[in-house]
């Protein structure tokens, strides 16, 4: 038995090396890392590219979303980066500050396929970082997402609303009315879990908050504007319009179907899930809508999300990678990718296709995507939002701290995280 095993291993290794060396010398192999199901489906687009570009082979490696950032940084630390990769666009500042990814300015300049105007402005912005007074584009949007309102049409009607709320005031008024529909029952109007920081930042930005100041090196959450948005959302928790804990809701979709809450601020990845859970007579009772706005502005802004394509500094095949990026950015490829996996296309032209135009749930996204803004583009941002904003939102929602105290301590903590950045900025001058 053992001998057989050894033989198989040795044979396997020999074949592996044999097949490597027998590969044609003029073939360039591009290592491309993609995450989760994107990796699975992008492989279906590759044969077409390889047919058009003989001599280039794409080797896709799948890395799970949850471990992606760690894997990429570890790969960088050990000089094992791939040629190219998919990167959540909020991660770009980190990898840019690591000098792990390259500026795409020249490549874009020469390209007929990729140019700024073809993309949603707010989304494109997330890939641009100011470095030594120049604006450097580090990534090309691949697919996009943003958060908006998922709501129950039937409950809205019962509460006397025939359309989605257009202003903060309407959102609040509607929430009150929804809760009043179920006296004595444990039902809520909106789900605003404190382990999702996004709505808190979105409402702050809608009210005009400048989140970080002094070249993004000083926290500014105590500002009147941020407080307005933050407090507005915290009040939903305090007035029992939103469930306090997030452990209470183990399955968001089921809870939505059971009217446990009737509104949820979330992204396009949830469309297929809601379709799956809202069955039979509920199938037509939900919809998406752009976010309500602050003081007469409609729609209110949301955050620019999605994934971008980046090239690593150590890649020896940057031109070939760029060809692949251009192929992925063609409207046809973008539509094809949408059909495979339902990721929203980053190229605006692709949205003219009937597949996207005829989907009623996507109309709101089309409108919202013209109203998106990037979050501060510093590597520390992720830590500030995930550990600090969520922490203080929870403390405020549970009334452990007042909103003022929470925001003051949020500023202190964020400033501590930004200490190194201030030091770097001072020393560079």
């Amino acid at each position, binding site marked *: 038995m053992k001998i057989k095993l050894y033989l198989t291993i040795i044979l396997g290794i020999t074949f592996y090396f044999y097949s490597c060396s027998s590969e044609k010398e003029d073939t360039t192999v591009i290592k491309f890392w993609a995450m989760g199901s994107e990796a699975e489906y992008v492989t279906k687009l590759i044969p077409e590219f390889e047919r058009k570009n003989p001599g280039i082979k794409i080797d896709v490696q799948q890395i799970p979303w949850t471990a992606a950032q760690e894997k990429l*940084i570890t790969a960088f630390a050990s000089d094992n980066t791939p040629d190219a990769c998919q990167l959540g666009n909020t991660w770009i500042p980190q990898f840019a500050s690591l000098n792990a990814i390259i500026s795409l300015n020249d490549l874009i300049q020469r390209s007929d396929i990729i140019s700024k105007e073809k993309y949603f402005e707010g989304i494109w912005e997330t890939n641009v970082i100011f470095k030594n007074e120049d604006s450097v584009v580090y990534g090309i949007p691949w697919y996009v997402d943003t958060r908006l309102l998922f709501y129950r049409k039937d409950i809205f009607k019962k509460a006397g609303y025939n359309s989605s709320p257009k202003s903060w005031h309407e959102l609040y008024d509607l929430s009150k009315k929804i809760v009043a529909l179920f006296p004595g029952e444990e039902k809520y109007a909106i789900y605003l879990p404190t382990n999702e920081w996004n709505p808190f930042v979105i409402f702050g930005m809608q009210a005009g908050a400048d989140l970080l100041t002094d070249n993004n090196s000083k926290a500014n959450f105590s500002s009147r504007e941020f407080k307005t948005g933050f407090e507005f959302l915290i009040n939903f928790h305090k007035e029992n319009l939103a469930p306090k*804990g997030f452990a209470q809701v*183990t399955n968001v979709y089921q809870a939505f179907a059971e009217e446990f809450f009737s509104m949820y601020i979330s992204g396009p990845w949830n469309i297929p899930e809601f379709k799956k859970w809202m069955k039979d007579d509920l199938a037509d009772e939900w919809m998406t809508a752009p976010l309500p706005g602050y003081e007469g502005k409609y729609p209110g802004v949301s955050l620019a999300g999605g994934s971008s394509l980046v090239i690593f500094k150590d890649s020896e095949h940057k031109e070939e990678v760029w060809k692949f990026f251009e192929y992925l950015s063609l409207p046809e490829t973008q539509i094809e990718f949408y059909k495979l996996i339902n990721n929203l296309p980053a190229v605006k032209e692709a949205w003219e296709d009937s597949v996207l135009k005829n989907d009623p749930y996507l109309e709101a996204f089309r409108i919202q995507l013209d109203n998106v803004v990037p979050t501060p583009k510093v590597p520390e941002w992720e830590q500030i939002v995930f550990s600090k904003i969520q922490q203080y939102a929870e403390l405020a929602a*549970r009334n452990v701290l007042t909103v003022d105290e929470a925001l003051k301590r949020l500023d202190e903590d964020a400033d501590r995280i930004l200490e*190194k950045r201030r030091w770097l900025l001072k020393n560079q001058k």
Partner: protein
Amino acid sequence: MKRKEKINFKSASGAAYFFLAPAVTAIFVFFFIPVIAAFFISFTDFDIYALGDLSTLRFIGFNNYIELFNDPLFWQALKNTFYFVFAAAPLSIAVSLGAAILLNSKLIKFKGIFRLSYFIPVVTTLVAVAIVWRFIYHTRFGLMNYFLSLFGINPIDWLGDPDWAMPAIIIMAVWKNFGYNMIIFIAGLQNIPEDLYEAASIEGAGGFQKFKSITLPMLAPTTLFVSIITMIGFFQLFAEPYIMTQGGPLNSTLSIVQYMYQEGFRWWNMGYSASIAFVLFLIIFAGTLIQFRLQRNAA
């Protein structure tokens, strides 16, 4: 008494070193070097900027440790970890001992099946177990609240209430781990000579007296081993809260290891994270020493 044989010390030690070499090399390369490196890193502000450009690395002396002692979240994590260790470890040992004594009794049939079923949680993947327990603890549909409702107890928001989240995790951890210690206790019990009990019976000792005066003292070495292993394991609490509560609600289940992981591998504050690791090491080290001392005094 056996007479010591004379051995050729020189050549024997040479051979011993030769045989030890592979293990020692591996321990040195994969244990001591990383530990020493981490110790140095804990005096720097090694972070994502330093990873990109080493010239931004600053040697900051004891600042990480000073900051750590002023960090409310660290104290919270420390408090939670101690709460967990001091509640779950004795409970787990008591449950294992109880189960071991029951299973060692002559009255029990099908011992194999019981041993197996008590041991199964130990070998089940922790992640799967934690996910299942999340459902058990669900406020509205959970099995736990259903049982409590049979006794007229109002539903408890196990994982959502800051006061209940840690007890919930303790119950789960005890259930998950007692089987392992139980097996060790059974082995210990089987080593107690039967004639001791017989002699005690003849002297007229009752069940409890036998337990107190024979079983417990004879099990002392086993108990020492079990309590040290359990304590070390429980100080490293990580996966249960990581999966079930992510440290919440209100950081009431945030453990030291989880905090260390977050700082180090989520935010890349390696320097700060390394300092947390060393504080944890000192705590476990102290805990082990104290246990040795207590046990020696008792013996």
